[in-house]
């Protein structure tokens, strides 16, 4: 036997190969009988040559040019011929039943409407606390917190690098006390909280602070529900930063967070595989889902390697998608991903727990699709994106505000976003019927094609050695940069139409100026003063002890989160913990392409 063959045999099978082997092909029961299909085919040929205009016949397939689209060509009319081998029970089935194409719950929104989870975060914790309570008072059913630039990048508000940026673009959080102010009077045992902690390193610091805050309020961790993001793609690819730790260490921390959270906070979603920010940064409807899937597969492999039951871990993972402008594609994509994820969990991981087979997702309408000209048009764009997500069966949603090409949303704009979701829920009746697009010749064909393309890209990543390797090699950085630059050109060349921007642009409109958000003043001084007091009152020897234990845990390769928790309890700050990570793991230089 040749050396080459031996190596190939030793190589791990790709997910595609496993599915090809395990998904039963025998005994399929096609929905449409061959006789009917043959008749339709003949009639269609006849119709095409007699009724359809030659021009349309010659241009039967058109590839839509839309923001962040998939480039999948579309026929002019779809018929059963496009779903010729559809086996209803195997491919679609019933809601709440395998393969979950139609929905993860039998009654979907009749049982529980999608969670209205509007993002909030600006200024100091006391400022964002007011916005959270405003949203909850007006019917939001979940909370989602976005952090300011220094918190996202993991520096304290009093770090010289944070100067002039505290409370910008999100809320400033340095320590457990800030978490306490942020959630004051928010019933954490009743409201689900999403901490948009983005990165694994960030999550390892902020989530323990959240937990310690809950403990100080006397709330048992078993009562807490919500999610963190905790995604290496965000930390190492999507983010621009002065300092990064290496992807391999970042992946390890991602898994540490998953492990710690699963063991200690049973109601918490331990990772949100985040397609959203990657897609917004510049990638297609397909790559967004393929990358998240590949990351999810690699993370679960690692969890299994650490000795955990995949059913136990996977029931608490979630996904996060960016619905953009191609309406049916967005609905079909969520369905496709649900079926693909089910197959992966069932056949690659042998999962049995139904909850572990579900692709549960949060969506946020696309920020990059919002334009500055005639900003109220953005309300319409976001509403269509939201509606498509509901038709796809998303579990929770944020609708972007019309003023986001100007600044952080005003209260007025945030209210319109909230109301958009409530209008979908209460006025349109779309939530009464589960998977209303199921069975559409078009949507089913699109669902099949998207599923196939996602799996193809997952395979490409696996053949590179997996997601972490693809990141280390710069493959993803390059792909994203290329896509962003090409999309920009398509907008410039008018291939992608944006109403009011490059298409039907009005030069003579005299629109009133919209209100634009103004950041609260004095946040940096307040945060710095709070930190000064904190550093004075806390037991600094205890802090140092906790930090040095954290450093040793990083070096030993242990799960670091319990040590982060101890540091949080001792009132260590975010910047202090990140400093430990940088020292222990060293810095990494991400590749840059343009």
């Amino acid at each position: 036997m040749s050396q080459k063959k031996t190596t190939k045999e030793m190589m791990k099978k790709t997910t595609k190969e496993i599915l090809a082997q395990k998904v039963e092909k025998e005994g399929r029961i096609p929905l449409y009988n061959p006789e009917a299909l043959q008749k339709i085919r003949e009639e269609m040929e006849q119709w095409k040559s007699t009724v359809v205009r030659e021009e349309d016949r010659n241009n039967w397939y058109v590839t839509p040019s839309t923001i962040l689209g998939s480039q999948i060509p579309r026929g002019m009319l779809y018929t059963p011929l496009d779903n010729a081998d559809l086996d209803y029970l195997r491919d679609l089935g019933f809601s709440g039943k395998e393969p979950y194409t139609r929905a993860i719950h039998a009654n979907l929104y009749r049982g529980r409407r999608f969670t209205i989870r509007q993002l909030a975060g600006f200024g100091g914790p006391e400022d964002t606390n007011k916005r959270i309570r405003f949203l909850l008072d007006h019917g939001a059913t979940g909370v989602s917190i976005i952090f300011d630039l220094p918190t996202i990048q993991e520096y304290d508000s009093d770090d010289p690098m944070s100067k002039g940026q505290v409370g910008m673009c999100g809320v400033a959080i340095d320590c457990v006390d800030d978490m306490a102010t942020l959630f004051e009077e928010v019933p954490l045992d009743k409201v689900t909280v999403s901490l948009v902690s983005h990165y694994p390193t960030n999550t390892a610091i902020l989530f323990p602070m959240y937990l310690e805050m809950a403990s100080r309020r006397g709330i048992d961790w078993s009562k807490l529900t919500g999610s963190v993001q905790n995604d290496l793609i965000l930390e190492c690819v999507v983010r621009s930063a002065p300092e990064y730790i290496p992807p391999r260490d970042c992946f390890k921390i991602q898994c540490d967070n998953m492990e710690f959270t699963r063991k200690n906070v049973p109601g918490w979603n331990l990772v949100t595989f985040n397609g959203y920010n990657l897609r917004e940064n510049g990638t297609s409807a397909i790559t967004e889902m393929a990358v998240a899937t590949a990351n999810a597969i690699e993370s679960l492999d690692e969890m299994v390697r650490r000795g955990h039951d995949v059913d136990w871990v996977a029931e608490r993972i979630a996904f996060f998608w960016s619905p953009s402008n191609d309406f049916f594609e967005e609905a079909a994509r969520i369905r496709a991903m649900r079926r693909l994820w089910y197959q992966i969990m069932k056949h690659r991981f042998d999962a049995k727990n139904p909850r572990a087979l579900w692709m549960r997702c949060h969506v946020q309408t696309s920020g990059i699709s919002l334009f500055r000209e005639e900003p109220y048009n953005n309300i319409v764009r976001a509403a269509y994106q939201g509606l498509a997500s509901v038709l796809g069966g998303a579990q929770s949603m944020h609708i972007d505000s019309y003023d986001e090409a100007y600044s952080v949303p005003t209260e007025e704009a945030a209210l319109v976003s909230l109301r958009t979701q409530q209008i979908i829920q209460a006025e349109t009746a779309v939530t009464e019927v589960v998977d209303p697009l199921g069975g559409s010749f078009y949507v089913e064909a699109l669902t099949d094609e998207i599923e196939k393309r996602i799996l193809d890209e997952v395979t490409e990543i696996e053949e590179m050695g997996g997601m972490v390797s693809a990141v280390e090699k710069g493959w993803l950085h390059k792909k994203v940069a290329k896509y962003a630059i090409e999309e920009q050109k398509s907008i410039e060349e008018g291939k992608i139409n944006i109403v009011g921007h490059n298409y039907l642009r009005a030069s003579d409109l005299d629109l009133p100026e919209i209100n634009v958000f103004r950041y609260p003043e004095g946040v940096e001084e307040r945060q710095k003063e709070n930190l000064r007091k904190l550093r004075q009152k806390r037991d600094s020897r205890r802090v140092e002890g906790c930090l040095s234990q954290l450093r040793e845990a990083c070096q030993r390769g242990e799960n670091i989160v319990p040590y982060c928790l101890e540091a949080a309890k001792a009132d260590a700050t975010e910047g202090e913990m990140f400093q430990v990570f940088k020292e222990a793991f060293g810095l990494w230089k991400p590749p840059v392409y343009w």
Partner: protein
Amino acid sequence: METTCILVESWGWLTMTGAEKKIKVLLAKLGLEVHWRGVITVAGMLRDAGMEVIYVGNAFPEQIVKAAIQEDVDVVGISTLGGNHLTQGGELLDIAARSGIKDSTLFLIGGVFPPYDEPRLREIGFDGIFAPGATRGEIVGFIKEAMATRATT
């Protein structure tokens, strides 16, 4: 088109070299700002327009000015979507003025900022301000025109 690969050192940079007398542009993400799509897209536009582009990644005002002096650039372009355009943008222009490069260098800013801040950005000393939706023609045209004006005055 072939994408050019440049490995950016943590606080350093590599330069795209080319024909002589190219307009030389330094691009940076301002401070801790996180989004890189816009600046990379602009880097591509300027390269396509025949300019020499140096992208330093995230950098703080002092580092940006230091790099601009070392590289002897014609244009400094900074990108931010995160709300630090006045605070750190102001600091950048102050340091540039103190270092004596403010008048000899074109300072541009691009990103997301409220319209009411635009006059203030001009007061601070930015020569060009580009909000979302700014086109290739506007950005490249602005730089070329400004450089031509400088050459004749």
